[in-house]
């Protein structure tokens, strides 16, 4: 058990680290201007100067993958933050206070939950118009229920725990009990959930930008790159495959990490 | 009937390897009740499990042999062993409730051994099982037969376990702290039940407990385990009335002290 855990941990950590590092470096410098078009290198296959090759505009795919990865990372992160934050509050209220408030909120929760996130996002986007911000918002909302449910059950678990009871006896304020006494105990679960949530968010974002809702061209987005280059799959498979692989590795890295979080 | 000869077992999942039990010798003859005492972690249960062949992969039997009717259980294949356990040797555990499959009617669990070891028709099995449930003094057995574990009390579950263990009329019953999880009044009945079976079936019993009174109550011989080693063994009288080893003295002393 122990040995295995460490191994996975390492691999996942290294993978995620490398990817994040690449993306961060990408913020400051990419081999080429990701939007620079160059008729000469249209569809040029992977080579030393273009390690991932070029797309239908002769733009360097590697550079675009880095930039696209940044967007994906951003969306994933923000989504989780939104979901976690509101989920936390919702869960805390419902779990800790309980009663009718709980009933109502959880019903609402169920309503949202009984609606697949991707569809929710789809409707939401056609409502607000496509752009990165709205994608984050849409996914964030779609992610709240899952967080809320988990936090809620955790709170219910802890609300009768001895240390909470004693705190109550000591006339500690509700809010204080919530955040000082209970929260810390919930953190590990939250972290694990967040990690999983992040992966789902990344998957969802990729899916949405594949459908062409999300980041606006010419700015790169992994999903959009794939959908746009699917037409050229037989001539220039690299256009679709490298962005795809990047996503896979990204998710793999983080999920392996979250694994180890889970186990603790 | 059962001969455990200088058996040594170690745990290999940790580094360094931790000792389980060391050079233990036990022998049980027909109709004999042997008690094994010792504090938790002294290797009582481990011994029992090794006899049943239920120890996990990372636990290794390094030396010694376990002879049952002069057949070394450590030599034979898992398949052959499965023919023996539950049939000639059976076992009852502590925490009866969790030892029953929550999703299976207790009746089915009682008659399972028959299904595995004897070739009987479904109905015969059911009859037998109900008979057994009556023998363990469960009220209206044929109703209990269709109940699920969570619908029964701890005591009832333990009776069910005993029924399941006895249904093939084993030659040896291993009882691993069968009463510890139960409250005192029920303990008595369960013990009575076991000793009755012991009489009627004239089977050997290996009774594991940390409770001397219980041992005293039903055992002929007793083996005292301490940190995986046999510190003392002999008839109940000898061991309890004039213990030789320090540890035993302490053990008995406390008890006597208590009784005064």
């Amino acid at each position, binding site marked *: 058990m122990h040995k295995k855990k460490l191994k996975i941990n390492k691999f996942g950590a290294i993978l995620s680290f490398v990817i994040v590092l690449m993306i961060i470096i990408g913020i400051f410098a990419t081999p080429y201007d990701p939007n620079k078009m160059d008729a000469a290198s249209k569809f040029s296959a992977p080579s030393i100067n273009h390690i991932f090759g070029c797309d239908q505009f002769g733009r360097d795919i590697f550079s675009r993958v880095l930039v696209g990865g940044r967007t994906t990372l951003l969306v994933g992160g923000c989504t989780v933050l939104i979901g976690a934050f509101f989920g936390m509050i919702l869960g805390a209220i419902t779990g800790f206070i309980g009663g009718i408030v709980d009933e109502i909120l959880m019903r609402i929760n169920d309503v949202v939950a009984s*609606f*697949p996130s991707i569809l929710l996002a789809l*409707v939401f986007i056609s409502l607000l118009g496509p752009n990165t911000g709205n994608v984050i918002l849409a996914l964030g909302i779609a992610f709240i229920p899952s967080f809320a449910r988990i936090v809620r059950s955790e709170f219910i678990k802890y609300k009768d725990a001895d240390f909470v009871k004693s705190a109550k006896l000591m006339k500690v304020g509700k809010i204080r009990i919530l955040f000082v006494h209970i929260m810390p105990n919930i953190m590990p679960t939250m972290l694990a959930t967040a990690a999983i949530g992040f992966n789902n968010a990344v998957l969802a974002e990729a899916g949405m930008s594949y459908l062409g809702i999300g980041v606006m061209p010419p700015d790169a987005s992994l999903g959009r790159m794939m959908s746009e280059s699917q037409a050229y799959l037989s001539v220039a498979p690299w256009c679709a495959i490298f962005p795809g692989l990047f996503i896979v590795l990204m998710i793999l890295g983080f999920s392996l990490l979250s694994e180890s979080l889970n186990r603790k | 009937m059962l001969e455990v000869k200088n058996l040594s077992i170690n745990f290999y999942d940790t580094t360094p390897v931790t000792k389980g039990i060391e050079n233990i010798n036990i022998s049980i003859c027909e109709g004999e009740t042997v008690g094994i005492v010792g504090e938790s972690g002294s290797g009582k249960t481990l011994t029992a499990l090794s006899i049943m062949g239920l120890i996990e992969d990372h636990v290794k039997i390094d030396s010694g042999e376990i002879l049952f009717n002069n057949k070394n259980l450590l030599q034979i294949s898992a398949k052959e062993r499965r023919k023996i356990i539950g049939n000639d040797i059976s076992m009852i555990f502590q925490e009866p409730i969790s030892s029953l499959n929550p999703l299976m009617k207790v009746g089915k669990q009682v008659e399972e051994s028959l299904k595995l070891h004897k070739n009987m028709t479904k109905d015969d099995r059911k009859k037998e099982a109900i008979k057994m449930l009556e023998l363990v003094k469960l009220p209206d057995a044929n109703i209990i037969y269709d109940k699920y574990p969570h619908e029964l009390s701890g005591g009832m579950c333990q009776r069910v376990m005993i029924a399941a263990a006895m249904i093939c009329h084993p030659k040896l019953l291993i009882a691993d702290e069968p009463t510890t999880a139960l409250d005192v009044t029920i303990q008595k009945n369960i013990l009575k039940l076991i000793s009755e079976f012991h009489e009627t079936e004239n089977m050997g019993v290996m009774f594991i407990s940390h409770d001397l009174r219980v041992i005293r109550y039903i055992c002929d011989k007793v083996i005292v385990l301490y940190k995986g080693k046999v510190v003392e063994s002999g008839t109940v009288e000898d061991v309890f009335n004039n213990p030789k080893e320090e540890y035993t003295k302490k053990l008995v002393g406390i008890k006597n002290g208590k009784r005064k």
Partner: protein
Amino acid sequence: MKYILKKTGFLVITLLVISFITFLAFNIIPGDAALSKLGTEATVDQVNMLREELGLNAPFFSRYLSWLGGFIGGDFGISFSYMIPVKELISGKFMITITMTIMAFVFIILFSIPIAVFTAYKENKIVDRVITFLNQLFMSIPGFFLGILITFIFGLTFKIFMPGAYISMQENIGQYFYYLLFPSVAMAIPKTAMGVKILRSSLIEEKKKRYVRAARSRGNSNLRIYGVYMLKNAVIPVLTFWAMTIADLIANSVIIERVFSIPGIGTLLVSSIANRDFAVVQAIIIIIAVIIIVMNYLVDLLYKIIDPRIDLKN
């Protein structure tokens, strides 16, 4: 009984809320069916004429209520873009998507259970670790990327199927299933991996349980221990996941149908949103919601069937 009533009540309320929100959304988003139909030849009065014709000029609530009335009466309305009854339009499409969903689900069950049992049995052996890692890998592949890969490898390279082709049931039933197989598999694989993961850990939990040891002490074989004892217990926490999976599969059809250009419900939904074909979108979304909610009830009931300890009242 009380349970059923309660749940049905919830179902109704949920549907009301969802339908209302969708309706509201369609009032806010720019564009309407009339415009989409008329296109660039349109002049203002033409558009108004058509709006009138399509009843788009009526006030919001009266429109919602009239729609609701119709819907309750089993009339899903008319598709603005195709000018045919919505029922007629979507029934066929759902057929396709449901077929895919079922195929995918069967795939998931067929593969995830044996693999999970095997890996749980071989826990921490090399083979287990390898499979577990591959499992993680497959979990990380977005369904549509898998779709692209499948197209590239089996469609373009080995030419064992024709990318982008779809054969309708009427044309050739066998081909129909054959061509839906690839998208189904693309959807199924990541879910299968997830299923393996959950079931495996659940099984490993069961391994430690005392009743397993007791069962062994009766001389049960490994096969019986895993098959009769552990699996049944281990499946319980996985049921919910399976229910969610079905929902996800239907939702993901939106994307996967795009990859394989399958004219299923997902494709229809996207195009209907684009054409502001309200009645169609509304119907699809509600049906999907119903499916999801009903799935959840079925799971509750399954729990009850499998686990005698569960009591539906609470």
